[in-house]
């Protein structure tokens, strides 16, 4: 990239292994390997990046690229994901990062070694949950304002009940999934704008599980079977690089 100012984007830090070079450029120091890419600063510089981040197409492309590199790395070595947009001036800066933070990277790698992150999302279908709570009101003619008003009040009470019960179901599911995982975290449910689904999300959990361990999947199956009549559905995503389990 002669003539263009560049920086060094760091995807993550892995346990050093043969084969990492096939995925991304490697900066190796002792047992650690940073996965890097040279990026033009006219695209990743401070000012342009502000604009780019508002460009959904650009953001999606780059975020997925970041994720894909980490996925590939995770398939052959323990890896600590860095947050999107970590860029250094010089490769020597990346080397110094590995040197000065060697101990914390190594303990972070130890935490995730032989483990993967799984996502579990649960969705409520409010009308089915309302019906299960006994709020199924027969629809009929509304002859008077009073009847209308009473019906509105019933609906409001029911909606509040449904919301409370949804939250409770989500919390209970998270507790049960935690028992089937090494660690877990319940993140804020994603909003409809982002999921593109009408049903509200009632659980957005991430769980760290041993590679090849089926306990979490089995628990999700049990939850799904138990909650089917309530209109709750579950979705497992991953395996992911351990994004949720590297913060110190």
């Amino acid at each position, binding site marked *: 990239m002669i003539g263009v100012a560049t920086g060094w984007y760091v995807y993550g830090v892995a346990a050093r292994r043969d084969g990492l070079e096939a995925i991304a450029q490697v900066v190796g120091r002792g047992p650690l390997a940073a996965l890097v890419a040279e990026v033009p600063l006219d695209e990743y510089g401070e000012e342009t990046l502000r604009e780019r981040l508002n460009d959904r197409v650009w953001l999606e492309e780059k*975020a997925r690229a970041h994720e894909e590199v980490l996925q590939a790395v995770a398939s052959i070595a323990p890896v600590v994901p*860095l*947050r999107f947009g970590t860029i250094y001036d010089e490769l020597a800066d990346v080397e110094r990062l590995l040197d000065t933070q060697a101990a914390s990277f190594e303990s972070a790698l130890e935490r995730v070694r032989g483990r993967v992150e799984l996502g579990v999302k649960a969705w409520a279908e409010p009308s089915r949950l309302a019906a299960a709570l006994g709020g199924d009101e027969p629809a009929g003619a509304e002859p008077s304002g009073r009847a209308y008003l009473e019906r509105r009040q019933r609906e409001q009470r029911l909606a509040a009940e449904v*919301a409370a019960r949804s939250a409770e179901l989500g919390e209970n599911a998270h507790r049960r999934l935690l028992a089937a995982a090494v660690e877990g975290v319940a993140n804020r449910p994603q909003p409809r*704008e*982002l999921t593109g689904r009408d049903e509200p999300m009632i659980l957005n959990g991430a769980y760290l599980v041993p590679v090849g361990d089926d306990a979490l999947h089995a628990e999700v199956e049990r939850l*799904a079977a138990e909650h089917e009549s309530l209109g709750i559905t*579950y979705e497992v995503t991953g395996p992911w690089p351990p994004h949720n389990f590297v*913060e110190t």
Partner: protein
Amino acid sequence: MSSRELAHRSGPAPAQLADVLERVLDKGIVIAGDIQINLLDIELLTVKLRLLVASADKAREMGIDWWEGDAFLSSRHRDGNSLDSRLRRLEEKAGLPTTPEEQ
């Protein structure tokens, strides 16, 4: 629940963008805590960090907030012609107690 939804994805099935962004933009190690995007010369572990889009908070400041909002409180994102707001206007006109905006 389809078996596909429960299946452990071992192949390169495309992840939902929401899940990717949530992880890539809001998780992972932040090298120096909350680095401000405009702190170009920050001294970090004697390393000069050029730039870091540190967090979702930062992205929010930049106006990327479309993943924000509580799943149960999304009405602020709806336009004024949603059923809810039309109903509220009717109720106000009729002198009836109004439907709470968010529940």
